[in-house]
């Protein structure tokens, strides 16, 4: 990491860490949510931005982790750390299954296949009532006692987010990450150079699912509750929208997109019940005037300035 990038990262994390000093407890909760959904959006960006494959199944992978963590603490009585690990593991396994089925497809087929797989997970969560509680979901005191305070939980999530973001950043810049970008540029080229394209995509999908699982496990601790809406298509779509709003292929844009959407949802919904309409219009505006996303647009403006 160059000195400048490290400096920027430290400043951003320090600024984020000082937020609880100025925000109300409710707003700290929203900031926590931004971080968690930012990780989800970033995990989708690994595939969409670097391998050129947009997944509509990541909400389900995320939600499986949430389900497992809530179930493991509330019903099975596992300690929080073990429940957390079980959730991430379950999400990674689900991602491996999704990956096995989806890596040979691309474009809209990939989109539809991941969507269908996500719907299956949603259907299972809805119908397998003995375990998942069906539509009622499961409630449990997932968050460990030390983190019950909103601020300390926020700081913990922030620390986790910083580590995960660094890991993802390293992952996409590694030689392996470069092969994903090669696949995005041209799958047939990669194949003709002797790369095992499906294997690389499978590993990429699994890694992406692992990170989505971390987000899901944090969400379990944040919400202390899980229901089928956590694994529903809307969750996947929201993750994709956050990533797109922030900027596909920018990684950090995921957090900007998550902040923009969560802020918009909460601010606008205090004024009108039709907040979803406002959200839709905002999206159309972003797509027309900044299809490269907020961070992408800022990058482009900065590049123009420096030239």
């Amino acid at each position, binding site marked *: 990491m160059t000195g400048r990038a490290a400096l920027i990262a430290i400043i951003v994390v320090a600024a984020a860490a000082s937020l609880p000093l100025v925000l109300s407890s409710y707003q700290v909760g929203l900031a926590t949510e931004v971080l968690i959904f930012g990780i989800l959006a970033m995990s989708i960006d690994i595939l969409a931005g670097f391998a050129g494959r947009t997944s509509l199944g990541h909400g389900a992978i995320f939600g499986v982790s949430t389900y497992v963590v809530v179930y493991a603490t509330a019903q099975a009585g596992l300690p929080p750390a073990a429940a957390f690990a079980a959730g991430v593991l379950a999400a990674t396994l689900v991602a491996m299954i999704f990956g096995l089925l989806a890596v040979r497809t691309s474009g809209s087929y990939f989109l539809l296949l991941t969507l269908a797989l996500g719907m299956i997970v949603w259907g299972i969560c809805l119908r397998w009532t003995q375990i998942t509680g069906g539509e009622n979901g499961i409630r449990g005191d997932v968050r460990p006692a030390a983190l019950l305070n909103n601020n300390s939980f926020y700081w913990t999530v922030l620390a986790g987010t910083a580590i995960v973001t660094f890991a993802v950043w390293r992952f996409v810049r590694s*030689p*392996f990450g*470069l*092969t994903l*970008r*090669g696949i*995005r*540029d*041209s799958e047939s*080229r990669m*194949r*003709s*150079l*002797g*790369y*095992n394209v499906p*294997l690389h995509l499978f590993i990429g999908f699994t890694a992406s699912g692992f990170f989505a699982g971390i987000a899901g496990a944090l969400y379990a601790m944040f919400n202390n509750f899980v229901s089928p809406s956590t694994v529903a298509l809307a969750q996947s779509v929201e993750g994709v929208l956050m990533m797109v709003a922030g900027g596909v292929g920018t990684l950090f844009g995921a957090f900007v997109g998550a902040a923009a959407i969560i802020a918009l949802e909460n601010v606008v919904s205090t004024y009108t019940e039709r907040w979803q309409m406002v959200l839709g219009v905002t999206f159309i505006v972003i797509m027309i005037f900044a299809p490269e996303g907020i961070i992408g647009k800022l990058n482009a403006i900065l590049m123009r300035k420096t030239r």
Partner: protein
Amino acid sequence: MLEVRNLHSGYGEAVVVRGVSLDVGAGEIVALLGRNGMGKTTFIRSIMGLTPPTIRSGTILWRGESLVGLRPHDIAGRRIAIVPQGRRLFPSLTVTEHLTMLKSARAKDGWTVDRVFGIFPRLADRRHHRGGQLSGGERGMLAVGRALMIDPELILMDEPSEGLAPVTVQHLEQIIVDLKREGLSILLVEQNLYSALAVADRVYVLETGQVVHQGDARELSQQPDLLFQRLGVQ
């Protein structure tokens, strides 16, 4: 090292390569010549396990082991690299990124980024440029450099001189000869006869999917009538 025997390969109903036998020895440069549409690229793709085409019959032995039916990444794993026709770079990756895919920039063994930059200083100047921003000559160099990064023993080159300025072609010829000195085997597919004859040890001439001439490169270059007859050049 590479022994191809009676290879038939083609697309669907059409058999394009019809019974080609060819050898490449250790540290040898073999040129496969022929006009457009004679089956040269089909032949090279068949060796690399790329589909299409599909291999109908015949054997491809690499160090005594059959390559038929193996997938391209298995073949690359046996240290056979390809410089595909048209270079086929990645438009959004930088020069350095092309080279560091799967082999860390810090790797010390075999071919390293610095070593590639050593033989292609021009690429070092352009290391932060993206594939889409390079000139034809630079693309050619990068395609060769990328192939070297898997530490190959055999490089299949599909018309590396295509569309390049004569001075760049000469540079590339020099590189090919230098690589041979390092002990690499090279199978060079060319339409550019003079470029191929300048570097090759042995030559095969392909016509409608069959070998119509094979022999020493020096001999062929001294037989103008044969050149005219086989390749239509004077």
